[in-house]
């Protein structure tokens, strides 16, 4: 939500309502219908000395609210009492922490957050929130025990509000003695860049130790007027806790340029590289043809192999760290291990020779010994990455494909072998083979390299090297969880250097977001998108008038995003930029944010 004012009437009403309804308990009464509802209420009020508010008739039930848990308990003592010729049945529908009370608290906390969130500089100002007048008036956090729950509760509520993009948090003047109350801060605001904890009573470094290496984006920290800021080790401790801290208590403690260069890899993985344009078409054609048959009818592929062609599989059994998105922590390689030609694991020359298939006959047999698969190159091309290089020594080229496949069925050869070997291996199988867990079908990641020699109008595969590894989400896929800032979208330095050099390696394909595997129908035609101006800069809509100094700082991808947002939202240049920037240049997020903030946008935000 963009800019909800302090004096918004809705907030005040909501707060008043929340205050009134805080702590109410819902109750239900049965067997009263021989009299009127009013009679029932009068009876209970007179005897139990409890008033049921907002009472309603729901069929045979009278449903209403009492002011507190204590009142509800008092009322329940009258369960079974004789009234109008029947025994009343009184039930408490929800407990003290029930829905009505909770949701009202949440609503109230949310109103506090909205009031204290500044969308323009993406700052959540919780400074002195424990002494906040409105909070005090609400009475929800009146005593000391409850007060300590205010900050955790606020953080909890904030964590569910996706539209708060918080880069700065002010927690000054909150009487904090330790960080337990705000320990989750790094999880709630993973992008946090600026944090102010000034004027609190933090005294020991141990308090902060749970934050070690957690705020990986934190650039600025303000801790003045805390006892620990006077410690001689204060600066070095803070530098160790926050690896990317640049400014501590208004003093520059790290060189930001140097910091960036130390913590960034100079080249981000791009999904596509092709050494020359004519190979683009050839390689995409080859891939869609090959993978289709690989999934559906491997036999038919054998025509592409010659008597000298080679094929082998190698298995990388390493388990990726659990912090890799989607990583399979329990991969099963049972079908591949018997054929794996991994030279780091298999050292006997004889075995290595046996596991190398030469000629289409041996290759055909090897194809049948590994599970049936389904690749989704056409459906989700972003799951794949490809590099194509010329291979002049064979007048051909190499294609390397990184990606994933789903195992759909056990190998063809598996069933044949089992029948043949059934008798002789019965004893052994009991012990080692027939193990269903190591032959479980699952998703796998792979890297596969083909050496391809074009001959006349067809292609011969000279070499086919397949490596299989545990499934992971690939590194080249755009990060969905954390929107990437403009920084990481900037062209890596490699580009400039490579382009400047005069070498036989023309970067034929723009490495930005070229999808691969567009299929033979589309071949290597670029994705349909906004028309590109000279030098690959997208043409902007005439109504999107960006100041030239702003425009010059943006890369083509960002300009394209702005253009798309502008055309879609009809926001003017300034607001389009704000929207894009606040959403971390993430289109999905920008779109959602826009939908949510339409009611709060001024008329002049739009192009007239």
């Amino acid at each position, binding site marked *: 939500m963009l800019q909800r004012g302090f004096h918004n009437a809705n907030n005040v009403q909501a707060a008043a309502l929340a205050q009134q309804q805080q702590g109410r308990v819902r109750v239900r009464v049965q067997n009263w219908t021989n009299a009127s509802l009013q009679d029932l209420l009068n009876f209970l009020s007179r005897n139990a000395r409890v008033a049921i508010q907002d009472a309603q008739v729901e069929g045979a039930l009278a449903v209403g609210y009492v002011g507190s848990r204590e009142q509800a308990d008092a009322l329940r003592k009258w369960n079974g009492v004789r009234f109008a010729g029947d025994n009343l049945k009184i039930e408490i529908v929800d407990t003290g922490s029930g829905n009505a009370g909770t949701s009202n608290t949440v609503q109230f906390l949310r109103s506090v957050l909205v009031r204290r969130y500044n969308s323009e500089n993406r700052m959540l100002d919780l400074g002195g929130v424990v002494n906040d007048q409105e909070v005090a008036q609400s009475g929800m956090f009146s005593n000391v025990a409850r007060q300590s729950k205010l900050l955790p509760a606020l953080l909890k509520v904030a964590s569910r509000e996706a539209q708060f993009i918080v880069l700065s948090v002010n927690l000054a003047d909150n009487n904090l003695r330790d960080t337990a109350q705000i320990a989750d801060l790094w999880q709630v605001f993973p992008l946090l860049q600026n944090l102010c904890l000034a004027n609190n009573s933090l005294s020991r470094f141990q308090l902060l130790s749970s934050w070690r290496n957690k705020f990986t984006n934190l650039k600025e920290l303000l801790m003045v007027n805390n006892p620990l800021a006077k410690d001689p080790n204060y600066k070095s401790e803070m530098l160790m806790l926050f690896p990317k801290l640049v400014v501590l208590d208004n003093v520059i403690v790290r060189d930001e340029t140097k910091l960036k260069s130390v913590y*960034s*890899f100079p080249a981000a993985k791009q999904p596509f*590289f092709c*050494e020359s344009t004519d190979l683009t078409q050839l390689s995409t054609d080859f891939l869609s043809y090959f993978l289709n048959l690989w999934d559906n009818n491997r036999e038919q592929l054998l025509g592409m192999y010659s008597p000298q062609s080679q094929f082998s599989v190698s298995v990388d059994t390493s388990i990726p760290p659990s912090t*890799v998105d989607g990583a399979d922590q329990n991969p099963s390689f049972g079908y591949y291990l018997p054929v794996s030609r991994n*030279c780091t694991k298999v050292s006997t*020359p004889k075995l290595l020779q046996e596991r190398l298939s030469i000629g289409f006959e041996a290759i055909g047999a090897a194809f049948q010994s590994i599970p049936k698969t389904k690749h989704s190159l056409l459906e989700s091309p972003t799951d794949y990455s490809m590099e194509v290089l010329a291979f002049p020594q064979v007048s051909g080229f190499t294609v*390397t494909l990184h990606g994933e496949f789903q195992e759909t069925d056990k190998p063809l050869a598996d069933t044949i072998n089992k029948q043949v070997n059934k008798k002789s291996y019965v004893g052994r199988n009991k012990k080692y083979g027939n193990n269903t867990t190591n032959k479980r079908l699952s998703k796998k990641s792979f890297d596969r390299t083909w050496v391809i020699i074009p001959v006349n109008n067809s292609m011969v595969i000279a070499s086919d090297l397949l*490596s299989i590894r545990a499934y992971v989400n690939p590194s080249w896929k755009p990060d969905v969880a954390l929107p990437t800032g403009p920084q990481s979208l900037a062209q890596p330095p490699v580009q400039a250097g490579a382009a400047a050099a005069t070498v036989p390696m023309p970067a034929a394909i723009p490495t930005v977001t070229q999808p691969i595997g567009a299929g033979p129908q589309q071949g290597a035609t670029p994705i349909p998108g906004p028309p590109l101006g000279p030098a690959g800069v997208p043409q902007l809509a005439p109504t999107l008038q960006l100041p030239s100094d702003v425009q010059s700082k943006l890369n083509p991808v960002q300009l394209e995003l702005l253009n798309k947002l502008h055309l879609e939202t009809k926001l003017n240049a300034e607001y389009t930029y704000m929207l894009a920037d606040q959403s971390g240049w993430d289109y999905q997020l920008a779109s959602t944010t826009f939908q949510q903030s339409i009611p709060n946008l001024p008329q002049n935000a739009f192009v007239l």
Partner: protein
Amino acid sequence: MNQQGAITDTFVKKVFAHLDNTDVNKLGDFLSLFQSGSAKIILNSQPFGDPTQFLTLWQQQVVATQHTVQSVDFHLIPGSGMVVCNVTAKVRFDESGRDKAGVDATIRDANGSGATPRRGAGNHTPRTQWGPYFGISLQLVLNESIYRNSFQGCINAFNYSIVYKPSDTLMQV
């Protein structure tokens, strides 16, 4: 012939050892492995003009690394005198905040104190702090002369890709 598997494996390990090396004086040795002038180098789908350019960038802009080979497979392509290798590995980066030369981004106080971590100061070599593992896929096109113990200029193509990345790293990749 018989030892080709072992030799290929050793050679790949040698390449990774060169990548992990932080000593500037050893760069020349690494450079001599690349075919001078025409070796193709691709890093994360981005091409490099020549090996010197790549090695300079690797030395200056990449912190200390530690590679572990996970799988190596290779084919000799008949008639070409070339070997194609398909390699997977994992790599972790030094996340201590220091570059290969041991220089960090910290701005020292006037008196030189306060900024240095409590230990590791002085003349001691600062300890590396290895981050979590990344996944690597590497394709090499090598001259088969490596089986005759001749490594000069044997790397014809070097295609290095990061295929997976951990979310808890400090590195921006």
